């Protein structure tokens, strides 16, 4: 009895805070998305009208929303495999490194993760500068022609992908390295004794054992990459020609530049629905391939 009361006393404040600042607002956001809440409603609540699914239907007819969705999809489809692939590659290298050097390299490769996104985005804006940037200078040394990274609609999103991979790969690298280190050495010994080559070993021992972790980090990374915002906000302001306007960027402009808060809430819910559908789809595919731990 006493413990029960104590439980509520200890968990209560956090649960109350989560209810007030998360769960109720999420429900409110859904209701808001069914209204025409705009700048006039910010002044006086009497100006709010219930409009049903009108915000959603209008969004689906807004070319810029589709463009933002396409840009975000490009960022996810190219960025996530590139990021997770880099994480896996570096984790494998670290796993093979000498124990004394491993710590140093791990810290070095991980450091971009803890940096402030806005701060390093500013650096990359200059690294990607057409005339004075180090990246184009590097291309020049390789005999390639300079690229107008952030000024060319074809290159702006790939440049942001490059930056995002640099910023985030260390995170999954640490998790994959931990997974690699749980594989017992005996398994490798046994497969070597049976004459397995390095490639066979990777396919028969390493991959199956880290597959659940690989799936988990891919899913989490994907959910995170759908929430692209600060990179285009700082590096390109959504341009050029709206080629880097992401769904969240669109939501931010809709909500906090034009004060169409009803419509912006609808954007947030559509993004949520897309993330949910994609992650659920990935989980289902994994179950079919028997990759996840539950099966």
């Amino acid at each position: 009895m006493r413990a029960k009361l104590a439980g509520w006393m200890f968990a209560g404040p956090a649960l109350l805070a989560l209810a007030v600042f998360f769960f109720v607002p999420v429900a409110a956001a859904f209701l808001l998305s069914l209204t025409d809440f705009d700048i006039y409603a910010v002044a006086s609540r009497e100006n709010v009208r219930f409009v049903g699914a009108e915000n959603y239907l209008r969004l689906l007819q807004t070319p810029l929303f589709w463009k933002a969705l396409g840009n975000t999809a490009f960022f996810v489809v190219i960025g996530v495999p590139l990021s997770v692939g880099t994480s896996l590659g570096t984790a494998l290298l670290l796993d093979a490194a000498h124990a004394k050097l491993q710590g140093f390299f791990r810290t070095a490769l991980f450091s971009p993760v803890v940096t402030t996104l806005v701060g390093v985005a500013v650096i990359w804006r200059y690294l990607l500068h057409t005339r004075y940037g180090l990246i184009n200078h590097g291309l020049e040394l390789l005999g390639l022609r300079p690229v107008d990274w952030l000024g060319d609609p074809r290159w702006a999103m790939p440049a942001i992908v490059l930056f995002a991979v640099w910023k985030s790969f260390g995170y999954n690298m640490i998790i994959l390295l931990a997974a690699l280190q749980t594989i017992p050495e005996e398994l490798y010994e046994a497969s070597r004794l049976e004459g397995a080559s390095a490639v066979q070993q990777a396919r028969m021992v390493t991959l199956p054992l880290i597959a659940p972790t690989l799936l988990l980090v891919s899913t989490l990374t994907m959910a995170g990459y759908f929430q692209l915002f600060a990179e285009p906000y700082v590096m390109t302001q959504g341009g050029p020609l709206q080629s880097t306007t992401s769904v969240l960027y669109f939501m931010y402009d809709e909500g906090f530049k034009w004060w169409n808060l009803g419509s912006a809430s609808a954007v947030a819910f559509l993004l949520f629905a897309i993330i949910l559908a994609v992650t659920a789809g990935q989980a289902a595919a994994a179950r079919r391939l028997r990759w996840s731990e539950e099966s």
Partner: protein
Amino acid sequence: MKRAAVHIALGVIALLTLAPILWMVSVSFMSPGEAAASPPPLLPREATLGNYRQLLAQAGMGRAFLNSALLATCAALLSLAFNVTAGYAFAKLHFTGRDRIFRGLLAALVIPGQVAMIPVFLMLKSAGLVNTYLGVLLPAMAQVPGIFLVRQYAVSVPDSLLEAARIDGAGEGRLFRSIVLPSLAPILVTLAVLSFLGSWNDFLWPLIVLADDRLYTLPVALASLTREHVPDSELMMAGSVITVLPVLALFLLLQRYYIRGLLAGSVKG
């Protein structure tokens, strides 16, 4: 032989990874306009602190630094106050619906935080808290990953220890202070570091809530600097150094705790 190749590959990748950060530090000491040359210079001809002086005097970055430090410290303290008690309760105290509530919290992690932002903004606006420090801090007081982190660690506190103290007549509050908190010490450091860094690096929410540039945090101040004017790259790099280096230093100092938090959230999850 194979190991040497591994080390060379890692060395090259580490250099490429650190290059942007090293270049930032180097350019921040260059004179105005010096970096805008082809080929781009790697080191300053003559190191100067001019950019830092100008940044602190004119661009309000000194104030932004203090805002960031204050908000991140408060965010870490609030996170400790709310998440530690809750994490302990979910691990060790039996109350009605506990496991169902906990599963519900974990399931809610699929909801992107941005969904709640607009109603929270309206709520804070009617409470007069938009454009205040409190407006930045309140929504992040309790966080599910923080509760989860503490719970996973608190599960390993032996029940016998708690029961013995209860039999000795210790109240739940004293029990928490004198037995639970000391045994949770390492995870408290982890939670504090993660919360501090999370608050320092946060961008979208302070951008929405703070309108007055005297209240800006470093990321918001830096972003507004890039969007409104087109200042010298040397000055901007000094701004980046002020923003990035403190958290990088904190990470290097408390790396062990940070990595523990990162792994606790993912490997078992």
